């Protein structure tokens, strides 16, 4: 599903954000990528979203070689990848329903399908009652759930989450993780970038630890501490 082969990303400053990274993530896997600031986690997400180009190496997602992908094919590729961020990135001037419907409009979904899909997604993330609320009327946990609903409404087969619990308290973090697990159980491949030690330890999933742009360990059903340090 996701294949990186000897991927290096060097910025113009000479810094190597990634240095010869190779990894393979199977369809339906739940993977944590952990590491300190500057370890290269976020660069990895940006490369997978094709926001950045690798300096060298090959990246394949869903069988497509991203290095060879043409500019105009990027939107179609991104529709198969859901993404959530630490700061939620919701549209503040639109209510919950419109925020999720927005993702469907972007991919030109007929209105009658939007009317069916958005409430279904809201039920999945437990916010069916709050469809009329605006982001500022919601708690951090609720906002992240809206962001999750938006990421999932187009039925992606991969979900990338960049520090999804970074702005949340432990209770909300746990709930978001539970949701991610549910989504994973429904068949979506989930990749979570985090440095939330507690969450990683509890979940007992595959953990890829990075340090200064290289993978220092990659183990299944692992915890955080033994790898990050």
């Amino acid at each position: 599903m996701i294949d990186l082969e000897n991927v290096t990303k060097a910025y113009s400053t000479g810094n190597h954000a990634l240095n010869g990274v190779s990894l393979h993530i199977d369809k339906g896997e739940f993977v944590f990528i952990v590491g300190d600031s500057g370890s290269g986690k976020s660069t990895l997400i940006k490369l997978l979203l094709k926001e950045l180009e690798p300096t060298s190496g090959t990246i394949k997602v869903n069988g497509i070689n991203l290095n060879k992908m043409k500019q105009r094919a990027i939107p179609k590729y991104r529709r198969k990848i859901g993404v959530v961020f630490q700061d939620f990135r919701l549209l503040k001037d639109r209510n919950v329903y419109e925020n999720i419907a927005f993702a469907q409009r972007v991919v030109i979904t007929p209105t009658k399908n939007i009317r069916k899909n958005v409430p279904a997604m809201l039920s999945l993330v437990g916010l069916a009652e709050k469809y009329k609320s605006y982001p500022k009327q919601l708690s951090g946990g609720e906002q992240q759930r809206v962001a999750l609903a938006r990421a999932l409404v187009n039925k992606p087969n991969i979900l990338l989450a960049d520090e999804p619990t970074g702005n949340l308290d432990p209770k909300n973090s746990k709930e978001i993780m539970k949701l991610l697990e549910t989504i994973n159980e429904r068949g979506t491949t989930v990749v979570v970038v985090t440095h939330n030690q507690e969450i990683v330890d509890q979940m007992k999933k595959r953990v890829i630890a990075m340090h200064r742009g290289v993978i220092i360990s990659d183990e299944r059903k692992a915890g955080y501490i033994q790898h990050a340090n």
Partner: protein
Amino acid sequence: MTSVKLGTYSMRISTIGYCLKQGLKNIWRNKMFSLASIATMSICIFLFGLFFCVVQNFQYMVKEVESGVSVTVFFDEDISQDEAAMKEIGAKIAAREEVEEAQFVSAEETWESYKDIYFAEAPHLAEGFANDNPLAKQAHYVIYPKDVEDQNSLVEYLESVEGIRRVNKSVEVANILTNFNLLVGYVSVAIIILLLCVSVFLISNTVTIGIAVRKEEIAIMKLIGATNSFVKAPFVVEGLLIGIIGGAIPLGLLYLLYTRLIRYMGGQFDNLAGLMQFLPVDQMFRTLLPVGLALGAGIGFFGSYLTIRKHLRV
């Protein structure tokens, strides 16, 4: 599913509706800049319309004057009272290719029209000449050329005809009018181009600010998988709407003003009616309305399209 072809991909009607709605929202969100753009666009289109009206009317008046341009031919004294001799020469002139019409005006007719003009308020003064036409030797031909440009060659020919004493021509008036018309045209075009550049600049500014305000939204759209056209469309709609609104307002205003002006001029300056023939309102707006609206929409469209292309390398 209803869909229309737009560029290289097909767009659903609901998507077009969405883009329209977003375009309107953009205008509303940047109210002040949108208003400034609409106002500038209105001023530009208003001035364009104004110059257009002036140029069109000038051309119309020149055409009217040109169609009345004639050459008057007076005869040598020895034949100036011999109608048959004069008509013989007249027939020769009328047969020329460049002549549209040759009208014979007898000495009596000349005197009658002279009286109408100069003794209109004191007709008794003319009675003294009742049996002695002072213009007895002023019978003449009024010759209308087919084309004003032929007038010089016609005059040259007429001056060479035996029996003709004097040739009066009025081509200078038409020439002056034509030259002035050209000058007005050039100045108008220069001012209009300048104003259009200002409009494009302002629309571009409005769209740039719209892009800055919606930077985050655009970033999210791109991450979700929106195509370039989908990201660009609301901004283009915004520019297009500003252009159309900025075109419609001044055109409506011009229509009102022009109608009133014609009514006022017609009522106040009856004696100018012959000299100043205004182009009728419906004839003027048959051209001005589509041209003005197309200009507004065109500036709006290209102004926003080029700006979004520059700022959004998506």
